[in-house]
């Protein structure tokens, strides 16, 4: 066959040709130099920067998280404190209110006691005055009555006076005995 004879004579696929060796070497060296000096350092730098910024970003996120946690804690603390204060204020107010009520009650009681006491004094005074006035009137009335009954005027003023006084004293003793038992009854009722 013509093919095989031509082949065997001139071409061997495993014998490298000089020009192709040189061109292959040069081509590779051009590629290698550009990658070595220019392109790969450039992408390496970018990848490093990216790693940095990712790590930086993570760092920043961590910081922000810590700050947020601290802030939340502070808020919580403030809130708790505020609650405590509010409770304390409410408590104080309640206590104060109670104290005021007690005080007012005391004062009222005192005023009432005073009023009652002064009323009683007044009444006693009035009663005494009335009793004194009545004593006089009663004397004269009794004398008038007696004069009318007896039909004669009692001349002896001194004697007359003594009789009246004696009579009145008797009356008074009677009245005292009666009011004494009365007072005891009132005290019992008051208790």
């Amino acid at each position, binding site marked *: *066959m*013509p*093919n*095989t004879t*031509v*082949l065997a004579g*001139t*071409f*061997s*696929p*495993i*014998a*490298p*040709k*000089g*020009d*192709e*060796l*040189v*061109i*292959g*070497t040069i*081509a*590779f060296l*051009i*590629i*290698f130099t*550009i*990658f*070595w000096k*220019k*392109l*790969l350092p*450039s*992408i*390496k*730098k*970018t*990848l490093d*920067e*990216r790693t940095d*910024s990712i790590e930086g970003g993570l760092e920043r996120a961590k910081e922000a998280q810590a700050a947020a946690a601290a802030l939340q804690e502070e808020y919580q603390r403030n809130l708790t404190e505020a609650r405590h204060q509010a409770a304390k204020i409410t408590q104080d107010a309640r206590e104060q209110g109670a104290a005021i009520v007690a005080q007012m009650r005391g004062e009222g009681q005192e005023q009432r006691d005073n009023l009652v006491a002064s009323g009683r004094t007044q009444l006693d005074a009035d009663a005494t005055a009335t009793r004194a006035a009545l004593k006089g009137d009663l004397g004269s009335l009794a004398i008038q009555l007696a004069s009318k009954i007896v039909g004669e005027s009692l001349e002896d003023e001194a004697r007359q006076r003594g009789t009246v006084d004696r009579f009145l004293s008797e009356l008074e003793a009677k009245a005292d005995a009666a009011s004494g038992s009365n007072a005891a009854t009132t005290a019992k009722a008051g208790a």
Partner: protein
Amino acid sequence: MSLSLAAGVGALSTDSSCHLFGKNGCGFNNVAPGADDFDFSNRPWFHIGTYGVTKPVLLVVLITVVMLAFFWAAFNKPKEVPRGVQNVGEVAYLFVRDRIARDSMGAKGDKYVPFLFSLFFFVWLMNVMSFVPGIQFPVSSVIAFPAALAAMVWLTYMYAGFKRHGLGYFRVLGVPSGVPLGILFILTPIELLSNILVRPFTLAIRLFANMFAGHLLVATFAAGAWYMFSVKGIFFSGASFTMAIVMTGFELFIQALQAYIFVMLTASYLAGALEEAH
């Protein structure tokens, strides 16, 4: 006769009248792709001075431009919040840095990321040219290119090793730890030969042969589909065509895998060169 027709176009159109069950009884050997399809020396696309620029050479220039343009767009003015092509570039960068450099060398590997990165995408683009419609030729199936790269890998790891260990690097290369002295008499010459001389060849040939064979396989099925295409041969042709499609998909995987293996081995050689002396 078929060579002149095939020039610059590909194996499919070798001889359009050659069919199975055809009147002229033409055999498949007349249309089957062969090693000569990888020889572009006698069919340059154009000349610069007296130098004939062939398809593989032009493709290497194209790959260089495409690769630089893409990653320039991705990496030249990178944003902290990546957009569009920068995302793709970053995935690529992080893959090479984390899955290749750091996995094999640890933190020391960062220094070699530009080398491994350039290597990975240069090799992958050379491989993937096999898939690109209208090009459909893996540049790495031309031995000179894998060989040039393997030579640079060799220089790099030898330099790194001698810089790290001085002449003690021979010990690292030739004396595996935990081997009894008696065995070392046999093992050390083998290890030295393997690590110093054989490594670059296997590195280059593994890539070359995979791409060469893969391309040949796809081209053979494609040529078969054409050769058997007739009323009688339609099922054979269809089967062959299906295989060509399946193999193209499979090759897409192999292209990435071989680029990965090439760079992974480079990284492991470098890791060996940088490891602690034992």
